[in-house]
């Protein structure tokens, strides 16, 4: 058991830090949830990609450095410590790409991944539907067989990044006559500018269009854009849930950097004693999350799947993130009301944490039933 990084890993970290020092925009980019900011963040992805920093843990053939999980964690620590911009391509990189690595064809990977790595194509996710939020198995949007492909119809919602993104991926019901709701679903990729697609941006609490509703009316998708076997979409989607995705949804580097900034804010505000405990908890929580992730990475590298342990992780970071930002807003006092600061943007973003990617209520059910072995109730 040790916490010492190898000289090679430290050299990698130093290289990343040097690059970030030289390239990180000195002034924060506009919010990536605006049209202007989306474009600026897309350009930043291209800048990262030009020096192979956009997808460091991918194979080199797709634009990565094949650097492994530990170096990815180190890169993330440096990235957030540098205050570098948010990642506009994250939906594709952390949700779609792992699925393609596991279930995609060589042709799909060669076609989809390089422009994802450069930010040339930004992906939105299209999981939820109006009547299927936590209960994903009750999806209704359809994929109907047609010559050379499929016709997609129905409605998706809470599609993050879809207001400005290029393409999207999601599950569609391709066989309505199967016995169980998890069967007969197909995993497909589609173009958000294709004929038959209507994108209605939705403003989140601060009004910024962080997601959209998608109305699909016989949208043609060629067979090449089916991932895995038709009808096996649920299995395809779930199989990557137990891989490193559970680790990489929120990197520890992000929270270490936020906690350090919070401590700086606390210092700058005169170290008020009534906030000292909460600032300490933010510092401690970031460290706990970093070390928890190091341990999970070590287990993963030993061949363990993350499985239900990722529910511990989800509840922890989502509640941690809100508490940290609430503390910051409290420290800011009257200045905490402004909507145009990094802290308030972070607060609004954090509020979504316990809701998306499986509500925390669902996660606690999973922890109780699958980690603690409690009987399944009716919930």
């Amino acid at each position: 058991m040790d916490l010492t990084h190898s000289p090679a890993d430290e050299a990698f970290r130093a290289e990343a830090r040097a690059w970030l020092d030289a390239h990180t925009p000195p002034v924060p980019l506009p919010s990536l949830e605006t049209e202007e900011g989306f474009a600026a963040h897309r350009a930043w992805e291209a800048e990262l990609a030009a020096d192979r920093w956009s997808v460091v843990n991918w194979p080199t053939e797709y634009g990565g450095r094949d650097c492994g999980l530990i170096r990815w964690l180190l890169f993330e620590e440096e990235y957030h410590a540098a205050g570098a911009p948010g990642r506009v391509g994250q939906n594709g990189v952390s949700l779609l790409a792992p699925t393609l690595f596991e279930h995609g064809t060589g042709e799909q990977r060669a076609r989809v991944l390089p422009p994802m790595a450069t930010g040339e194509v930004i992906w939105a996710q299209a999981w939820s539907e109006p009547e299927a939020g936590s209960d994903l198995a009750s999806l209704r949007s359809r994929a109907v067989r047609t010559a050379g492909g499929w016709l997609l119809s129905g409605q998706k919602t809470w599609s993050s990044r879809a207001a400005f993104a290029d393409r999207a991926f999601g599950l569609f019901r391709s066989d309505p006559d199967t016995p169980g709701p998890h069967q007969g679903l197909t995993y497909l990729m589609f173009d958000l500018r294709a004929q038959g697609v209507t994108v209605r941006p939705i403003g989140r609490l601060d009004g910024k269009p962080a997601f959209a509703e998608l109305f699909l009316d016989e949208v043609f998708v060629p067979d090449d854009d089916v991932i895995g076997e038709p009808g096996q979409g649920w299995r395809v989607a779930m199989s990557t849930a137990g891989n490193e995705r559970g680790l990489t949804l929120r990197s520890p580097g992000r929270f270490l950097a936020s906690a350090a900034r919070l401590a700086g804010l606390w210092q700058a505000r005169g170290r008020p004693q009534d906030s000292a405990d909460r600032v300490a908890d933010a510092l401690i929580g970031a460290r706990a999350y970093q070390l928890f992730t190091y341990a999970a990475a070590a287990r993963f590298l030993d061949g363990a799947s993350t499985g239900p342990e990722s529910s511990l992780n989800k509840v922890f970071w989502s509640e941690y993130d809100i508490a940290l930002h609430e503390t910051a807003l409290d420290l800011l006092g009257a200045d905490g009301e402004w909507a145009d600061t990094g802290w308030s943007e972070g607060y609004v973003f954090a509020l979504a944490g316990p809701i998306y990617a499986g509500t925390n209520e669902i996660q606690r059910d999973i922890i109780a039933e699958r980690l603690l072995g409690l009987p399944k109730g009716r919930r």
Partner: protein
Amino acid sequence: MRFLLDAEQQAFAASLDAMLTAAATPAAVRDWSRGAPASGRALWRRVAEAGVFALAIPEAYKGLDPRPVELAVAFVELGRHAVPGPVVETVAAAALLTALDDPGPAERLLPALASGDATATLTLGPYALDADTTDVRLTVSGPTAPARPSEVPGPAAPAPPTELRLAPAPGAPPRPCLDPARRLFAPAPGGELLATGAHVAAASAQALTWARLATAAQALGVGLALLDRTVTHVRQRTQFGVPVGSFQAVKHRLADAKIALEFARPLLFGAALTMTEQDVAAAKVTACEAAYATARTALQLHGAIGYTAEYDLSLWLTKARALRGAWGSPAQCRALVVGGDRRW
């Protein structure tokens, strides 16, 4: 002793509730947020005609004489319906003007506030709410509370005199806020000097107490609206084939919100009866914490729909956060409670 609203007070609440329910306040809030105050001002006039602002104003200035309990009753309803504009600030301004030694400014300004012909904002701190659309902009500079013996340091520099001014219109647009209906401006310097001296500081302390009482009431109303809307939502929304509201985890969160709000309510009315700084601070922090906790629960139990600006729930969610810090942070209010000499 009979610590219950009487029939007349209950009827007052019900009539305001009915009026505001019919008035479609969410549309007025959205107009207000984007700087189109016409619908909000029309609503304001109806609120004023119901006598709400007159409850903070002496009869001598065309008010109904200060009646904090009835004012609290009214502000619960304003909060419940998310009425936009400087409602708390107008009450605070009225309290300040009433408490000055010189009746001149009160005679000049209060009748229009009582009738609803004018709105007011008051700056004791860093910002001026709704300064562009408001008729009376009051700014206090210098110490805003009379010095207490314990606070007087030994050989400190003398404080600058406290001044009350009628401030000019703001020179810049508002900076966007997490609650878009709160349009905050940097206070414009200068303007006509209305009063100066120790009585302005004492009057500012009075204004602060009234502002906190009104904010506490408004926050309680905001919390009650959030709870009502969430209960309605979880009864209708189904997941996994059953109403979301049948899950025990959902029930218990809503039960906790109910408990928090129902124990804030008596603090509010108790404070309205005594109007001591300590009672009002206790009501303010408790009502605001209850409302904010209810907002967190409301957001979580609505799920993604609650996270959207277009769904009306957002009007109350963002207000709950803003009121928590307005007119005194939780820590400041708690410090007044532990620092006070009086125990209940």
